[in-house]
């Protein structure tokens, strides 16, 4: 006999897809229509390519598009190379375990805060220049354009330091199933070094497992808006930033051009993915020839050192950047080239702390609500999978990654148009729904493995002892999996806290979170306020992780069996 609610549970996967992909599809439609001359807002319909012609006449177009492609491909290739080098050279060593432990906290740092931190390090008046000043004899900041450089190099750096932890985490999740230790030992017995052995026997099997995360990184990097507003060039900016400028222009007519540019951005993302796929095939071909040649590789030491240095550098960039934010937020007068301010003062916090309380409250409400929805849907999907013996296909995984691969800037403008039509713009529930689209994939990806790894015999025992299916869920499975559930919730909160574009566009500029506040400060340049705001943003993303660690530690303090679960 089906339990009450079983029908609902059975439909959970479908409902989840609808909640997650519905807005993506609707947003794409809302972007495509105006781009091709059909205005849902006014009911005008002059189908044609006029908007694209207008876009082509914009003088910055070629440079803007090239910037997007270049920074996207560059950041992804660099982040992947660093990740692979770290794993190839150091997996299984003590240095690697230290790195591993620092990973999750690094991952939770919002992109905008990491970008501001990096800016505070590498700017001509930043910590690095201050450290070099006595050696170089600088008495004032050197006159070089580092931040927002025209080639987008600092933008690439800002993306790499955030994407390396993500790719590393995805790699670590995929590695154990591949039993890299055994393969590597075999290769080493055949005379291969650690790095060449790893690249020849582990990487070819690993890459297909992390392909989707790599695609997500690529699509994200080439369409990112907040990091690009902070670190990217301005005249012209990468295409995604330009779309946002046109979207927020008081001249409504520019919105159609924004839509056309958003469609172009989607095309760029598809082209980049295609290029990347070709690159994959090329590298695989070269790799096979390299393997067949039996080359044992040279420069093992150099590669290992490079991996460790780059990995440590990218981690240090985030950590030191946060330190720089913290110091600026309490800095009194701070002249160049002093390493620290002459005086510390709480003035910034006192003056702007109150102003942060409203955005903080909104940030918390939106993050908690979006995470609650995402967690409920994820649990319902996983439970349905368990109860009805459903087997998610490889295609389901693609669908899960879809919101992470379709560029936000390609469908959020359309979603904003629809929200305005429906009178929902600036409405908090609409912003929450938009956040769910991005929070859900991360919550699901974070929870699915530990949830599925649960020993179902516990369930069989509980059923045989008289507990029904929901009794097993609430009284056995959920408490046993409290730690991964809370971790997934923390991941969800961090993702929501870091969202910029969905808040800005669907919120119609009227819903303010710490992230929208922080990014809005990018053009102003008051370092003390930026420091305080970005630090508050980071704290908001960190706090849930602290809770996710503390609650199970307290609740299960006398339960040794769950301490490492």
């Amino acid at each position, binding site marked *: *006999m089906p339990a009450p609610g079983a029908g609902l549970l059975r439909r959970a996967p479908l409902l989840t897809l609808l909640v997650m992909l519905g807005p993506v599809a609707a947003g794409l439609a809302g972007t495509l229509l105006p781009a091709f001359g059909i205005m849902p807002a006014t009911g005008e319909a002059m189908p044609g390519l006029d908007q694209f012609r207008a876009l082509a006449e914009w003088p910055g177009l070629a440079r803007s598009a090239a910037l997007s492609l270049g920074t996207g491909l560059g950041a992804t290739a660099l982040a992947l190379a660093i990740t692979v080098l770290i794993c190839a050279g150091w997996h299984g060593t003590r240095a690697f375990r230290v790195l591993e432990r620092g990973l999750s906290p690094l991952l939770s740092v919002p992109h905008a805060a990491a970008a501001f931190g990096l800016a505070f390090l590498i700017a001509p008046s930043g910590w690095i220049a201050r450290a070099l000043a006595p050696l170089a004899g600088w008495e004032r900041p050197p006159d070089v354009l580092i931040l927002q450089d025209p080639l987008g190099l600092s933008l690439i750096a800002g993306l790499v330091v955030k994407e390396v932890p993500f790719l590393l985490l995805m790699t670590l999740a995929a590695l154990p199933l591949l039993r890299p230790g055994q393969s590597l030992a075999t290769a080493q017995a055949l005379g291969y070094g650690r790095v060449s052995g790893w690249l020849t026997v582990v990487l070819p099997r690993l890459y297909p497992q992390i392909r989707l995360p790599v695609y997500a990184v690529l699509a994200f990097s080439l369409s990112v808006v907040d990091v690009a507003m902070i670190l990217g060039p301005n005249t012209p900016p990468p295409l995604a930033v330009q779309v946002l400028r046109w979207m927020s222009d008081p001249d409504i007519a520019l919105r159609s051009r924004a839509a056309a540019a958003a469609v172009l951005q989607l095309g760029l993302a598809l082209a980049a993915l295609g290029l990347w796929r070709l690159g994959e095939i090329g590298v695989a071909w070269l790799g096979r020839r390299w393997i067949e040649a039996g080359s044992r590789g040279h420069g093992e030491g150099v590669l290992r050192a490079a991996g460790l240095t780059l990995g440590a550098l990218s981690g240090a960039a985030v950590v030191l950047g946060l330190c720089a934010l913290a110091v600026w937020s309490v800095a009194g007068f701070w002249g160049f080239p002093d390493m620290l301010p002459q005086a510390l003062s709480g003035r910034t916090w006192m003056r702007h702390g109150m102003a942060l309380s409203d955005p903080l409250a909104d940030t918390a409400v939106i993050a908690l609500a979006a995470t609650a929805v995402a967690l409920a849907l994820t649990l319902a999907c996983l439970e349905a999978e368990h109860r*009805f*013996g459903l087997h998610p296909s490889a295609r389901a995984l693609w669908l899960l990654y879809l919101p992470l691969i379709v560029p936000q800037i390609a469908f959020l403008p359309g979603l904003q148009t629809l929200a305005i039509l429906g009178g929902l713009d600036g409405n908090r529930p609409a912003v929450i729904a938009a956040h769910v689209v991005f929070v859900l994939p991360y919550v699901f990806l974070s929870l699915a493995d530990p949830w599925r790894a649960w*020993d*179902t*015999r*516990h*369930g*069989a*025992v*509980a*059923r*045989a*002892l*008289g*507990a*029904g*299916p929901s*009794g097993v869920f609430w*009284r*056995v499975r959920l*408490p*046993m999996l*409290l730690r991964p559930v809370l971790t997934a919730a923390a991941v969800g909160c961090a993702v929501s806290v870091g969202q910029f574009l969905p808040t800005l566009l669907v919120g119609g500029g009227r819903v303010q979170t710490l992230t929208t506040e922080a990014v809005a400060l990018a053009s102003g340049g008051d370092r003390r306020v930026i420091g305080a705001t970005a630090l508050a943003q980071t704290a908001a993303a960190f706090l849930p992780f602290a809770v996710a660690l503390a609650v199970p530690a307290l609740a*299960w303090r*006398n*339960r*040794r*069996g*769950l301490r490492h*679960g």
Partner: protein
Amino acid sequence: MAEGLTLDDLRIARGEDELLRLDAHVAPGEVLTVMGPSGSGKSTLLAAVIGTLAPAFSLEGRVWLDGRDITALPPEARRVGILFQDELLFPHLSVGGNLAFGLARSVRGRAARRARVAEALQEVGLAGFEARDPATLSGGQKARVALMRMLLSEPQALLLDEPFSRLDADRRDRVREMVFARARERALPVLMVTHDAEDARAAGGRVVTLD
């Protein structure tokens, strides 16, 4: 239908492939041992009897328990207890909590339920263990808690899935004796799957071999 557990022309298949066929009756207090190499479907047989057969399998035939047809009942309504190779004590509950989880709903009232749990612990020489973390128990102690947890749910039949193979030789004999004695005392039909011939000998009942 007779008292005891009856597997009435049971046939389990996965798609087109027949996994096993069994037709047997286990009288109250009797032990039926099913032996076979790993992969012969022993655990699948037990899953079919407790009602947790994965949807990928199909089941033909009927399972009767004391004259009730339990084939289509959900596991929690079958009153069939099971012990696995691992004790599978719930790690988030105390020893007392584990026993209370098993204790039948028919025992009502906090005081009465606590007394029943204390009594069960006493019966297996673990008096006063209520608040203990199950992870801190020895293998033999865990096995005793798992046995009492299952018996407190007042099952009408008992299934054993290689329940003694994790214990060292010395403890194995004692735990085995304790389990079979409790089953005989309560006149429970016992269905045991194992690959250990010693288990079959100690059970002293009939042996069916799957291949």
